[in-house]
Each structure stands twice: as structure tokens, then as C-alpha cells.
């Protein structure tokens, strides 16, 4: 009888406590340095290739149904010749207090123990609540069944599924690559090393503007960069606690850059 009470007590304590994701091994985060980003869009293309994103066609893109998990947002200010173009790559921010997670009635989106906001494709019934609730508009819906014509189907990544129609999808921080790294580390009986996991966008950036890693590891590149004076979160006042940290663009020329940032200048991101 006493054992039963102990077991029940233990079980009650083991249920989720707030901030559970901070207690686990990893808290995956990404840092994007807007000083270095030049808006080339290589990350967008890499994401499409890695995650089997379908081409929806010109007519659908006109209707704003483009299937880009990662987009380069462009804002143009001013009149010619004093035009300023601002751009920022936006993907799923993997908010720690995500509005989308509470909206889904079937648990197709929830916060996993690595700090990622995961989307379970085969559970999604397509109520669109998560997409309406997302303040960053990062979720993409499969409006039709998108077929990839031959021979382009040979380009599809075998590690990632092809989603059927009626399912919501979004950036996963390349969870397939995270899974491979964690499995390898587990086989070799060690932790995941900093720089072992690189999502497709981080891998393809020619300007080294993106860094990815574990915020729980205080020595990792992302943890160091996240302590920068220029750091901010997108729409931070909404209190969604995103895992994507942006470094504010402060300079107009490369010369002023080094004055703003200490310990920067070419430290390896990967």
C-alpha cells in the first residue's frame, strides 16, 4: 500500500513542469546575423531541396500559396535613388511559448523535448488553427496533391517524407539531420558536438550568416552569438520566446562592423 502511494507520488511529480524543455539535453536554436546576410536566397533553395518541397506553379504563387518554408522577407523603403531594401530570412521560429501548439485539436503540433516545435504529418486533419495562430505566418498548407514529375523525383530526399494534400507543414530545423547526429552520438556514447548538426539553410549560406546549435551548451557558437549586444527576437514583444535569434543589422559598410562586435570576425560557425 505504501509502495503504491510512493509510485503514484512519483508519477505525479514526473508529469510535465513548466519549462520542461529546458531540462532536457538540447535546446536547438539558430542565430542569423543580418549584417552578413545579403539576401541571395541560397538558403531558400537548399531548404526546398532538402525537404522535398513541391513546386506549386506560377498561378498558385500569385495567390500567395508558394511553398517556401524559409522565405527572405523584403521591405523596400524610399524612392529612387534613395532606396533602402531591408531583408530578413524568416522560417519557423520554434517558439518556446508557441501559439500554434495550443490551437491544434489533435496534437499534430507540439513542443518536443529538444525544444523543437514539431509537426506530425500523419496526425494532421487540416483545421488550419495553427496557421491562423502563428504570428510569423510560417506555416504552409498542401492545397493539392503535388506530384513531382519524372525524372525530378530522383532528386527527392529519401530521409524526408512527401506530404499528401490536406496537411500543414513548416520548417523543422532539419529534424532528420538532428536525428542522425543524435543517433551517431548515442552509438559512440558521447554527446552531440557543437557544429555536428547543420540544417540545409545553414549549410548553404555563402556568407556564413547562419549558425545552428544547442543553446544549453554554453560554449557553442550559437550560445556565444546569442549573448551579442545586437541580438533580438522577431516580434519579441509578443512573448512567444522564439528559438531563432537575429543579430541586428547595424552597419552600412563592412568597415564599421568590427567596432560593434567583440570576439567576432571569422570565428567558425560550423
Amino acid at each position: 500500500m505504501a509502495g503504491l502511494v510512493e509510485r503514484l507520488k512519483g508519477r505525479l511529480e514526473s508529469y510535465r513542469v513548466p519549462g520542461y524543455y529546458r531540462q532536457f539535453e538540447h535546446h536547438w536554436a539558430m542565430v542569423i546575423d543580418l549584417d552578413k546576410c545579403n539576401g541571395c536566397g541560397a538558403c531558400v533553395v537548399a531548404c526546398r531541396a532538402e525537404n522535398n518541397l513541391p513546386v506549386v506553379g506560377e498561378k498558385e504563387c500569385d495567390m500567395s500559396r508558394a511553398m517556401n518554408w524559409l522565405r527572405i522577407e523584403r521591405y523596400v523603403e524610399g524612392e529612387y535613388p534613395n532606396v533602402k531594401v531591408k531583408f530578413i530570412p524568416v522560417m519557423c521560429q520554434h517558439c518556446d511559448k508557441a501559439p500554434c501548439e495550443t490551437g491544434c485539436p489533435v496534437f499534430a503540433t507540439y513542443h518536443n523535448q529538444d525544444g523543437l516545435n514539431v509537426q506530425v504529418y500523419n496526425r494532421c486533419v487540416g483545421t488550419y488553427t495553427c496557421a491562423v495562430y502563428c504570428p510569423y505566418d510560417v506555416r504552409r498548407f498542401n492545397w493539392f496533391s503535388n506530384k513531382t514529375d519524372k525524372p525530378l523525383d530522383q532528386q527527392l530526399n529519401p530521409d524526408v517524407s512527401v506530404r499528401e494534400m490536406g496537411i500543414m507543414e513548416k520548417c523543422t530545423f532539419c529534424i532528420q539531420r538532428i536525428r542522425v547526429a543524435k543517433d551517431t552520438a548515442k552509438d559512440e556514447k558521447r554527446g552531440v558536438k557543437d557544429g555536428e548538426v547543420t540544417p540545409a539553410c545553414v549549410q548553404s549560406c555563402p556568407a556564413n550568416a547562419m549558425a545552428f546549435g544547442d543553446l544549453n551548451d554554453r560554449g557553442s557558437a550559437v550560445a556565444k552569438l546569442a549573448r551579442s549586444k545586437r541580438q533580438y527576437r522577431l516580434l519579441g514583444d509578443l512573448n512567444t520566446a522564439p528559438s531563432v535569434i537575429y543579430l541586428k543589422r547595424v552597419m552600412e559598410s563592412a568597415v564599421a562592423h568590427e567596432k560593434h562586435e567583440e570576439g567576432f570576425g571569422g570565428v567558425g560557425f560550423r
Partner: protein
Amino acid sequence: MREDITYKEVNDDVVRTMTQTGKGYYALMVLMALGVFLCWGVPWAYQIYVGQGVTGLNHPDFWGIYLANFVFWIGISHSGTLLSAILFITKTPWRRSIYRSAEAMTFFSVLTAAIFVFVHMGRPWNFYWTMPYPTQREIWTSFQSPLMFDVLAISTYMTSSMIFLYFGSIPDLAAVRDRVTGWRKDFYGALALGWRGTDSEWRWLMRAYTFFAVLIIPLAVSVHSIVSWDFALSKVPALNKTIFAPYFVVGAIYSGTAGIVILMAILRKAIKMEKYITSRHFDKLGMLLLACSLLWTYINVLEVYTGIYANTSYEIESLIYRMITTPYSYLYWFMILTNSVLPLLYIFKRWRVSIWVTVAVSVGITMGMWIERYLIVATSLPRKFLPYMWHDYAPSLVEILMTIGSFMFFILLFLLFIKLWPSVSIYEVKEDLGIPGGKEH
């Protein structure tokens, strides 16, 4: 009502509506059935087969006319609850001849609304995953989600309003059973559950009816509050407001009452119930509509005012978008005209008792309330936080057809109702008439 109507006349009139059918009725039935097939069955099947892409939805406008219709029909469903339950508790006499049709309106509009839940889903063949049942995968539904509140609230409301309608009809079904022959006798005999009209049976019935009336009022308030929280629990600037629950409930009572006015006006002529539904009813309903209109106007002004003094850039942008820069701005001002300005005619009794004016204003109100639901969805999602993703929404042909089809479905159900069910409450009308020849006694 005329004082000289006899009890027999009441029974005769109601049974006549159920046994005598003109050609016009059959013609309308066939038309509605065809309309439901063409405007609902075919587009919906096409949508399920090809995908949700046949709608006008896009990124970021993930909710469109289907959700607007859903909220609209749930709103209409509050008519019966208001008339039947609230006015029963307050012992209001003029409710007696119209409440049965209002209750039926409630049930049918909840059914229509529930259909739109399935229509708007991306993978509707998996709809049962939203029901909380124990599965072998040991996964339940997420009760944090306002859509789960919806599932529970609407299914509760549907069953309660059905039982409410049925219980209140039992004596009438028995009265019909005693007058008809053939298959109808067996049908109503089964439905009447062996009602004999004894004193204890009446007492039990009134207890059950009162219980349901008291239960269904907070249920109706909670159902529409929950539907409003689908929107209010989001972070979308135009939707994330605490006023949404009262706003929707007031809007529901408003549109529901307007719906009753239209329905009563049609029923009067269609099944020849002019004796029982008189200008007195329209007078009282008009007063109710005036009160609702003033309340609705107040809440709308509040929304604009609180938006202005909140003074965040996205709040101001969503206000300006909704009222001025959206392609639907003409709809917004039309709605203000029909919902806030025209009902002021109801201040004058001369226009309240005129059935034409009452019905015309009510038609305007119903249109205005539909527009309001549409604007809530279609002018809020295009203006979320990141301007790069701003994009307007326009419904596609499939969506428009399904909207029209839903109205036809509702009318079809109602046509079946007036033929198969006593659409005017016999025993309550008799209560209103008093004891026959009563003045001398």
C-alpha cells in the same frame, strides 16, 4: 390572437398543415433538393477529391467563407434558445405560437453549422480524430485547443436542442396522433411515446421542459463564446480581443431574432397561420431587435475605440484595413447601415406593427450579420504582423456555391419540418386562448 378561436380550430389548423400538401410545396421541395445536390453535394465532392486548393484560401488567409458561414449558422441557432428558453423562464405570453418553429430553426442551423466544420477541414476523412475516444495509440485530443471546446460545446448543444424540441412537442404529437390515420398514426404514435394527457404526465413534462429551458440558456451563451474563442485565442491583431465572447453572443441573438422574424412572416402565408402569428408578435420581436441593435452598435464602437487607444501599429492598421482600405469596405459600411441605422425604425410602433417593414429590416439585419461574420474572418487574417505576408482573400466559385447550398439545405430541412412536425405549439396556443367561452365563466 382572436379571442373566438376554439380549441378544435387550433387542432384542425395544425393537423391540416401536416396532412394537406399543395403542389407548390412539392415544387419547392424538388427545387431545394436539386439545389442541395448541385450547390452542395457536387462542389463538396469535388473539393474532397481535388483538395482544399479549389477554395480561395491561401497563406496567410487560412480561414475564409466556410468559417464565416459556420459562425453565422451557429449565430442563427441562438434564435430558438432565446425565444423558447429565455422567454419561457420569464413567462412571456407572445412567445407561444412561434417558439416551436424557432426551436426547429435552432436545431437545423446547428446541423448546417456542423457540416461546415467538416467542409473546411483539410483531411475530412479523419474527422473522428477530433473526438475524444480511447484509441490503441493512447493519444487523446488536445483539450487546450479552442476547437476541442467547440467539438464538445456544439455536440452538447445539438443534442440538448434536439431533446428540448422533442420534449416540448410530445403533447402535440399525441394530439396529431389522435387525429390522423394510416401510416401517420403509427409514425406519430411511436413519437408520442404513449402520451395520455393525464395530470401527472403534464406535471412531469413541465418539469422536464423547465429543466431543459434553464439548462440550454447558459449552454447557448457558452457555445457562442467558445466559437468566438476560436478567433479570440489567436494572436491575430483584429481577433485577439476580450470583447469577442459578448460580441458574438449579442450578434447571435440579434441575427437569430431577425431570422425568426423572416421565418414567421413566411410561415404565416405559407401554412396559413395568420390567426396565430399576428402583428403583435412582430411588434414584440421588433422591440427585441431594437435592443440588440443598440447593443451591437455599442460593441462595434467599443472595438474601434479600444483599437485606437491601444495605439499599436498593427491594431491601427487592422482597423484602417477593415473600414477603409480593404476591397470589402463597401460591405462594412453596408453592414453599418443595415445593422445600426435601419433598425432605428423600430423605435416607432407604427413601423414595428407593419409586417412589411419589420421583415424588410430583418432581411437587412440577416444580411448585415452574415457580412459581419465574413468581415471578421476575411479582413483580419490578411493583416497579421509581418507585412510581407499580407495578402487579400476572395472566395472561389466552390465556396460561394457551398454558401448558397447551405441556405438551401436549411430551407429543405425546414420544409420537411413543417410537413412532418406540428410547427405551431397546440397546447401553448390553447393556454394563450384561455378557457373556451371564458368570459362568461
